[in-house]
C-alpha cells in the first residue's frame, strides 16, 4: 500500500506534488478551523448556567433522578470526550436529541427548515450578485455615475435587514399588495413569491457592499499603469475595460462576494424573524430561549461550516484568477 502510493507520488512532477501539498495543507487548515470553532461553541454552551437535567426532571427531583438524567444525557463525562462523541456523530447526520422535544432528533427539527433557509439564502445571494455587480460596474465604468452610485450605496449600506423589512412590508406588501407580508410559502413559485421581500431585505446591505467594492476596485484598476499601457496601444475602450479593468478587479470583487455569501446564513436569522418565516435562524433563536442547546449547537455548526466552505471556495477561485498565486516566484 505504502509502496504503490510512493511510486504513484514519484510519478508526479515536482509542481503537481507542490500543488497537492498546498491543497492538503489548506484543507487541513479548514478542518482545524471547523473543529476549533465548533468546540468553542460546544464549550460555551456547556458552560451555560443552569442544569438541563433540572429542567427535565420535573418538580422536586430526587438526587438519584438527577444523576440518572446526567448519565442519560452524557453529562457525567469530560467535556472533550463529549465533544468528540458529538463530532463523530456528524458524518452520520447524528446531531443528538432535542432536549425540549424529547422524542425528536435535532436532525428532524433541522430537516424541513433547512430547505426554506437555503432557498432564502440562495435567492439573496443571486440578488446580491446581480444587483451589486450591476450598480458597481455602472459606477466604476462611467465617471458621471460614480458620485450617484457612491451616494446610493452609502445609504443602502446602512439599511439592515430588520429595518428593510418594515419598510418593504409597509410599501410593497401592505401598501401595494404585490407580495405577502409573512410566511415562507410552499412549492417553488409560491416560495419565490413569498421569499422575494425577505430576500430583498437580506440582500440590500450586502448588495451595497458588493457594489461599493466593485466600484472602487474598478476605479483603482482603471488608474493602474498597465491599463494606461493597454490604452496607449490603441485597444478599444471596451476591450481595455473587459480584459484589463474588469478581469483584474475580479480578484477583490470575488473576495468580497465570498465573504458576503459566507455571512448570509447568520444574517438570514434576523430576516426570518422579521418576516415570521420558520427557518433555521428562527429555530436557533427559539432554542436559545428554550435552552435547547443541542439545536443551537447544530445550527451554529452549520453556520460555521458554511462559512469555512465558502471561504475555501473563494481561495480556490483566487488561484484560478491570479497566476501569481499558482506559479513559481509569486508572492504570498
Amino acid at each position, binding site marked *: 500500500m505504502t509502496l504503490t502510493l510512493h511510486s504513484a507520488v514519484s510519478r508526479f512532477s515536482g509542481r503537481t506534488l507542490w500543488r497537492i501539498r498546498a491543497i492538503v495543507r489548506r484543507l487541513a487548515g479548514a478542518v482545524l478551523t471547523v473543529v476549533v470553532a465548533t468546540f468553542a461553541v460546544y464549550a460555551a*454552551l456547556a458552560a451555560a448556567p443552569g442544569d438541563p437535567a433540572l429542567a427535565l426532571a420535573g418538580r422536586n427531583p430526587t438526587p438519584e433522578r438527577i444523576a440518572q438524567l446526567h448519565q442519560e444525557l452524557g453529562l457525567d463525562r469530560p467535556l472533550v470526550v463529549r465533544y468528540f462523541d458529538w463530532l463523530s456523530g456528524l458524518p452520520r447526520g447524528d446531531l443528538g436529541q432535542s432536549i425540549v422535544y424529547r422524542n425528536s432528533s435535532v436532525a428532524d427539527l433541522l430537516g424541513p427548515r433547512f430547505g426554506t433557509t437555503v432557498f432564502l439564502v440562495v435567492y439573496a445571494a443571486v440578488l446580491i450578485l446581480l444587483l451589486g455587480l450591476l450598480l458597481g460596474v455602472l459606477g466604476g465604468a462611467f465617471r458621471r455615475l460614480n458620485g450617484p452610485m457612491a451616494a446610493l450605496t452609502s445609504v443602502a449600506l446602512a439599511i439592515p435587514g430588520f429595518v428593510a423589512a418594515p419598510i418593504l412590508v*409597509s410599501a410593497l406588501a401592505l401598501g401595494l399588495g404585490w407580495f405577502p407580508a409573512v410566511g415562507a410559502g410552499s412549492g417553488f413559485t409560491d416560495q419565490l413569491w413569498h421569499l422575494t421581500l425577505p430576500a430583498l431585505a437580506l440582500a440590500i446591505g450586502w448588495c451595497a457592499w458588493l457594489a461599493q467594492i466593485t466600484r472602487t476596485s474598478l476605479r483603482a484598476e482603471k488608474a493602474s499603469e498597465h491599463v494606461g499601457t493597454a490604452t496607449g496601444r490603441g485597444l478599444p475602450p471596451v476591450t481595455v475595460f473587459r480584459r484589463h479593468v474588469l478581469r483584474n478587479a475580479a480578484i477583490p470583487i470575488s473576495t468580497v462576494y465570498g465573504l458576503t455569501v459566507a455571512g448570509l446564513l447568520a444574517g438570514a436569522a434576523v430576516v426570518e424573524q422579521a418576516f415570521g418565516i420558520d427557518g433555521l435562524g428562527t429555530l436557533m433563536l427559539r432554542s436559545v430561549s428554550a435552552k435547547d442547546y443541542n439545536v443551537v449547537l447544530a445550527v451554529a455548526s452549520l453556520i460555521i461550516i458554511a462559512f469555512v466552505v465558502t471561504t475555501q471556495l473563494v481561495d480556490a477561485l483566487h488561484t484560478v484568477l491570479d497566476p501569481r498565486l499558482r506559479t513559481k516566484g509569486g508572492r504570498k
Partner: protein
Amino acid sequence: MTAVTSTPVTASPPSRLRRWRKADPVLILSVLWCALAILVAVAAPLLAPYDPSQTDILAAAQGLSAQHWFGTDEVGRDIFTRVLYGARLSLLGPVLVVVIATAAGTALAIAAVWFGGWFDRLLTRVLDIAFAFPPLLLAVLSVVLFGPGLTAPVVALAVAYTPYIARVVRSAALRERHLPYIESCTLAGLSGPRICVRHILPNVLPLVRAQAVTSLGSSLLDLGAISFVGLGIQPPSAEWGLMVADGRTALLNGSPQESLAAGFMIIITVVAFNMLGERLAERAEVRA
C-alpha cells in the same frame, strides 16, 4: 509629543480657511448629525415631551399629530419621546463595543508585529478562526452565557470586531515595522515599547481612527439586529432595534410609525458614521 522645543510648521491660517470653505457638505452634515445624536442622548430628559415609559391606553396606536409628532405605540407611549430616549442605549452600546475592540485589536496587532515569530503566527491563526463566527452567532453564545441585556451583546460584538480591527492594524503596522525609520530607531538604541508606542502607534493611528468610526456604524447595526431578535436589551427599555421589533404588530395593522421612525434613526446615524469613517480613511490614505 516628544518635540517640546520645536516650533511645528503647520498649515498657515489662510490655507486652513480655504480648506474649510471647500469642505464637503456631506462631511459637515455627518459631523452635525453625530453631534446632534450625542446631544440628544445626553439631554433626552430635557428634550423629550413625555415620559418614555408612561402608558396611556386611551391614546394608544395614534397616528401623527401635534401632540404626538410620531404618534403613539400600542400602549400609548409617545414614539418621539422613545426615539429620543432610544439614542442613549443605541449609541452607548456601539461606543462600548468600539472602544473595547479598538483597544484590544490595536494592542494585539502591534504586539504581534513587534514580536513576530510564533506569536504573530498564532495570532493570525486565531484571527482566522474568529472570522468564522458571525456577530449574531457570538451574540447567541454570549446570551447563553450572560443572559440577555446590554452586557452580552457588547461582549459578543467586542469579540467579533477585535479580529477585524486587528487585521487592518496588523497589515499597516507590518508595513511601518520594516520601514527604515523604525529600523533606525532600533539602531539608535530606543526600547521596543517606546518604538511601538511613540512611532508605530502614532503612524497607524489615522487608520485606526477611520476603522473605529466605521465600526461604530456597523456595531450599531449589529446591536440593533441583536435587540430586534430579542437577544439584547429587553422591553420596556427604549432602544431603536427593539422599537423596530415592538412596532411589528402595529405595522401589520397598518400603522408603521414606530418601526419606521426607529428604523430611519438607525439608517441616518449609520450613514453619518460611515461617511465620517470614509473621509477619515481617505485622509489616512493620503498620509501613507
